């Protein structure tokens, strides 16, 4: 990998790190299980590794931003995650911050 590509790859990782929480939290406004989340995000152009999403879901649950329930009604038991009230409040704050930032960054980039 050339030096420029390497710097680019690191840059993308840094950018994505903060955004991942926002995307996952937003997606969990509807009950979702890990694998479905990975698929849906990939289909929306945000490819995230399962080994990133699963531990993240767990950490958000530990912070009481998500809650989870096992669905054992089918032959494939799945753990569904859904946003909590605390998660909703945080999501609103981060979304607003994100929109302002994107607007400001766009202004800078277009200058």
């Amino acid at each position, binding site marked *: 990998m050339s030096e420029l590509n390497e710097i680019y790859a690191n840059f993308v990782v840094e950018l994505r790190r903060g955004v991942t929480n926002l995307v996952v939290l937003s997606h969990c406004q509807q009950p979702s*299980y890990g*694998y479905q989340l990975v698929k849906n995000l990939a289909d929306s152009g945000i490819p995230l590794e*399962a080994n990133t999403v699963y531990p993240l879901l*767990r*950490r958000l649950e530990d912070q009481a931003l998500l809650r989870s329930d096992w669905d054992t009604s089918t032959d494939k038991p799945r753990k569904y995650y859904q946003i909590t009230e605390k998660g909703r409040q945080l999501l609103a704050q981060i979304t607003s911050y994100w929109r302002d930032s994107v607007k400001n960054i766009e202004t800078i980039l277009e200058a």
Partner: protein
Amino acid sequence: MESKELIKRYIYAVTKHLPENKRQDVGQELESLIEETLAERSQGRPVSDADTKAVLMELGRPVELAAKYDPHTKDALIGQPHFSVYLRVLRIVLLAVTLGMAIASLLEGFITFESNVFVFFASVLSNIWQGLLGAFAWVTIIFAILYQKDVKLDYDKDDLEDLPAVPERHQEIKLRDIIASFIFTILFLILFVVVPQVNIPLVWENSGLIPVFNPEVLITLRWLFVAAASAQILNLSIRFLARRHTLPVFFTTLLEAILQVILLLTWFHTPNAFNPAFVELTNDFAPFMFEPANWAPLQSLPVAISAMPLLLLIILGGVLLGTLIDLITTGVKTFWGQKA
């Protein structure tokens, strides 16, 4: 290995790093993820071992996956901000130990009259090496504990209200003073605790080197020496971290002074504190040195002190005066600085 067994082992390898109460739940969730991924990958055909391996490889190494579940896990023995302080302390300690061990080993070599130069230098190098290893281990262990236990250093105060004021010039503690005191303390420890048979050697015509103090007494009192030196090292460490006269600096200086006084009084009160051979030789030309100093001004003091040999009293007086001056200077700089 069969696919199911491989999956079972993989999940175990991940979950064994997690807290007990999370293992089963995370394990079931991973199992569900692996099954879904395999089902999609095989598209209805029977799952092969190669499929399983590919899916597990995508998930990554078990230890790395487990680490993602607990991002707060510290993956370094000593990380920042402790690491920079650790490097600085280590440099000073290693320098002091090298100097101290070199001087002590050279003196020991002269005392034991090692005639083989190679054996002599090998023993000097070996002593220095052992000293360095010990010092390295202790400093590393202490800093690893400080880092792992999140003990905050004066350096990483991040609250604006807590930022330390820029020290006034008179309040500053110079690094060279700390290093000089540290080397002196290490030398003191080595001479009086590690090689008490050497302690302070004097060159005497026809008799070679004679230690001034009685080694047996030093061995009996070695814990007191260690305690006094430890108090001094504690004081120097606090001086190093604060780099100015603060209350902790003053109180550890006070502790150091108290321990020094206890050590000196206990030591000099012991009969035969001096090496008998040294006393014998000195008596030839200055017998008054070892007679009780029956000066009138001393008569009011407790018998234990007034009956001490003159030489001991001179040393005792000198050291106590030095300690008192140091304590007063530190006190004035601390409290004057606080008010300023």
